[in-house]
């Protein structure tokens, strides 16, 4: 429901919002794990960027190639990421592609980790990986609920933690901390108008 006119007003973030995480490139003397080499061999345009920070490897993947990369990482014997331990997002409102969606993968066979990251714009469709890892189902529902990331192809896309009729997506940076109640505090007349309009809509 990103286009809903009743959604709480976008509040300008107070401090200067950074344009995204730094994603530092790996140091020159550090060889990337072997499964990354075979991934870029199997899917030529699969990796847009590789980064390394405090011991974690991250690959940035174009949205269009996400499913291919995920399928490869799950099935390839040298990667074998059979456990999708987390799917989450972060919001960088100053960027045109404002969302980072992050998939934390783990392999119970090789005991290694990898983070796959995609960058998506406000309404851009992000394909669901729950067909590959069924465990991503609720995690993607939470990402949709909290950020409004447009997850496509999801078997059961509903809100998860917030009530079904909730307006707005609470984890976005422009969503006020105290919730939509702030409108009432700052501009009670507008709030009253909004409530009346809502009540009338209910009666009809």
């Amino acid at each position, binding site marked *: 429901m990103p286009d809903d006119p009743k959604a709480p007003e976008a509040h300008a973030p107070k401090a200067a919002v950074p344009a995204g*995480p730094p994603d530092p490139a790996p140091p020159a003397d550090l060889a990337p794990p072997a499964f990354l080499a075979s991934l870029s061999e199997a899917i030529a345009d699969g990796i847009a960027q590789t980064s390394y920070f405090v011991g974690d490897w991250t690959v940035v993947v174009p949205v269009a190639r996400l499913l291919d990369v995920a399928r490869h990482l799950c099935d390839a014997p040298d990667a074998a990421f059979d456990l999708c331990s987390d799917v989450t997002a972060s919001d960088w409102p100053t960027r045109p592609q404002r969302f980072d969606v992050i998939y934390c993968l783990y392999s119970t066979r090789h005991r290694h980790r990898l983070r796959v990251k995609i960058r998506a714009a406000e309404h851009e469709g992000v394909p669901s990986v729950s067909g590959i890892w069924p465990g991503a189902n609720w995690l993607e529902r939470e990402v949709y609920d909290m950020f409004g990331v447009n997850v496509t192809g999801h078997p059961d896309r509903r809100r*998860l933690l917030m009530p079904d009729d909730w307006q707005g997506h609470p984890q976005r940076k422009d969503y006020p901390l105290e919730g939509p109640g702030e409108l009432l505090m700052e501009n009670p007349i507008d709030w009253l108008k909004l409530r009346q309009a809502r009540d009338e809509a209910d009666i009809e």
Partner: protein
Amino acid sequence: METPTVHHGAMFDTNELVLNMGPQHPSTHGVLRVVLRLDGEKVVDADVVIGYLHRGIEKLSENRNWTQIILLTDRMDYVAAATSNVGYCETVEKLMSLEVPRRARYVRTILCELQRIASHCLWVGTHAMDIGAMTVFLYAFRERELILDLFEEFCGARLTYNSMRIGGLPLDIPPGWDKKVLEFCKIMDSKIDEYETLLTHNRIWLERTRGIGVISGPEAAGLGLCGPVLRGSGVPRDVRKDEPYAAYDEMTFDVPLGTSGDTYDRYLVRMEEFRQSLRIIRQAAEGIPDGPIVGKVPRLIKPPAGETYHAIESPKGELGFFIVSDGKSTNPYRFRVRSPSFCNLQGLRRLVRGHLVADVVALIGSIDIVLGEVDR
């Protein structure tokens, strides 16, 4: 005489029935709602509804400074609060590349394992009570009380401890505390046998748990299950062994595994984890090294810009923190908790299919959820 034929189908309505269980149901351990579709007494499908305890801890944490968040993590898994404290502090330490003194790492190990025992005590008590064995509940809570006393002596609180600081511990252990921990281990040893006498070979217990909610290892991993639930299906996955944190790399212990992946195996895995936890506590309490309890922590905590994910093994499974720092402000830019109860609860829908309504209660107990952590 001609016997009349009885058509059961004609007499009874055989439509599917939708049964709403919770959010105020005593066996759902809080505010979990499960909408069951029933065919007679068999569960055809289930919809698990959560969010009744959602307090927005992630959003709140993004507006608190790095030290204030520690006490918010208490409010997630409130039966094992110290574990969440350790998980969060270690993630920030990883982000800042801080060195934690060995003494602090040993005490953290002891606290984590005491919490595991306390959490498993609560689990075995409530799980058995859900299935109908009242006695175990009273026994298990008696021993949990001893652990709470130890925590009260260490940090003054009995439930929400706030017992950790970034870079080390808030205070040193009280004199003689390690001796009391060892004494507790001695008492606990025989108590685990007591629980097992009541349950492990109990005919009713076996009937209620064997073959209930069977899930294979690969399927459990695909569903994102973790902790004892995954190990009950025979997948050797334990963060303490695979990605050691605190002082686990210096401890000797085994990871118990199940074979058939049913409720009974998950029970056996947790019972063995009691013993392994005691083994770890003994090694750690006997070998606490001398030295400082806090590393070289800057007065103003401000991690460099970047993002990281760090996981620890909480009593329920893999508790992960994904934290993004922008390097400029004194609060995290993004704070995300991957809670084990959340991911395990997702598997409930798969587990209850084809079982009876009474087994739903057993299965909710067997995956061991805490709603404070599911909803955050």
